[in-house]
């Protein structure tokens, strides 16, 4: 029997992995993957809560909204990574450090 708690554990694990990935990865594309994990952990929460806890569909619709926004976000992010690659010939975030001084 799969209960709400199982879903919440999976999503908490995904969220933590996402934060861990964002903090440790140096490759910009890997960091973006970490961000996707964070967004999807919230999606799992929303759908699970909507299914088990409440009578309305709000959570599932919110999840679809999040998926659309995530796609738009990745489009912008990859465009920026691409222009950075054209300028630096690398997507390593450690080398994008001109602003730090």
């Amino acid at each position, binding site marked *: 029997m799969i209960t709400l708690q199982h879903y*919440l554990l999976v999503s908490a694990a995904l969220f933590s992995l996402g934060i861990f990935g964002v903090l440790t990865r140096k490759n910009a594309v890997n960091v973006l993957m970490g*961000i996707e994990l964070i967004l999807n952990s919230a999606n799992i*929460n929303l759908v699970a*809560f909507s299914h088990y806890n409440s009578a309305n569909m709000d959570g599932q619709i919110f999840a679809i*909204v999040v998926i659309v926004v995530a796609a738009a*976000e990745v489009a*912008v992010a990859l465009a920026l990574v691409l222009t*950075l690659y054209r300028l630096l010939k690398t997507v390593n*975030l450690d080398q994008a450090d001109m*602003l730090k001084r």
Partner: protein
Amino acid sequence: MVMANLQSLRYCLPELTLFVAAMVVVLVDISLKSLRRILNPSLTLLCLVLAGYLSLRAGAADSGLFQGMLASDSFAQFFRLLLILASFLVVIGSLDSDELSPVHSGEFFVLLLVVTAGMILMANSTNLAMLYLSLELVSLTSYIMVGYLRTDRLSNEAALKYLLYGAVSTGAMLYGFSLLYGMTGTLNLYAIRDAFVSQGVDGFNQYTLLLVVLLIMAGFGFKTAAVPFHFWCPDVYAGAPTPVTAFLSVAPKAAGFGILIRFFFSGLSQGTGTQWSMMHGLNWSAILVGISVLTMTLGNIAALTQNNLKRMLAYSSIAHAGYIMMGVAVLSQVGLRSVLVYLFVYVFMNLGAFLVVTVIYNSDKTFEIDDYAGMSRRSPFLTVAMSIFLLSLIGIPPFSGFLGKLYVFGAVIDQGIIWLAVVGSLNAAIAAYYYMKVMKTMILDEGDKNLPPLKISPVNMSLLVVLLLPNVLLVGFWNSIDRWVAASARLFSHSL
């Protein structure tokens, strides 16, 4: 009271105007190649004026638009006007900037129109899904605006940094939203409040709610550039084209405070729309007080050592977010008014300071404070203008910044939190030092005697005058501002 979709449209005319204007500017930009240099900015300005006029006309409906997605109250009216005004001034400020003019400019105006509409929606949303959607609309467009100089490495790095910090903090906020949905079973702010008030928050729920508030503050803190979510701020402000930096430092910050107030006042406290009290089981005021103390102290101390004026203004804008946060944290009618006054006067002083940065960059290609030496000889007018903007930022009477500080500190003392007011005034004293240092460099330091007098283009000159006037004169209209703000500090409070 909730309004159906079609009836709601007439209360959203300003936002609709902005979205239509964005599409028109795209079309003009690709179809009328010879005229676009003139048509793009003039159409943009015209549509912003139209949107401003419509928002004056629209009036508050005092009901939830689009089945309770958006609020249309006098608070919403205030933010509409404020954000449209800020965008209008930024468009004029971007016309004569050497950073932006080599790049083709059509998209810039389109992005600015879209982000303005997004900010208005964001400050007015009363549903978590709408809130997230509009917040991301603002974020995504501002990422592109920061990275607008495609061939410039700094601009690019700034945009990528902004995006990564932004995506993580809004992701954390979204996770908080999902938990909030799980606790209450609804996405509507008023229904969330009703659920908490009727069930009561106790035991384990208290800790969950505390965690939720911290996660959500990551998103709002990112938008308002509050510590500890401020790391992006100096880098992004330094790397972005100066008009974009000026825009980011006032408009999204104001919208961020708008939604912060709406979320905490309507969603997480008991109240009627003009009077609020803390909800049992969650003391968010203490969290915001802590954030505000950290924000102003760190912002001011970091600003002391900056040599790049854009970075210094970035830290100073973090510190100002701290002062404004004090007004939110006290949770009172007076506090709410103080936030509105502060945001209003902040638009003129900060845009003014950044405009001076743009003007000096246009002729000298530098952002270093040391290079400003001898400015009083090269352009007395610019020196006087910058001094007034900086004195206003310090909060010295009779300049308008004084009004903001007066209201905020007044609200804190009114609530009896004397120690917070003391910390705030100590911070204002630290801030005076680094603002005065810039003035000292411009007025007293000799600099290179061979540098020619500084030229100011007519557009920038007139905008400087337009921005100076409110800084000098607003204190004289104290009564009208007080009345306007008192009328605006009324939140829509009904539930479904």
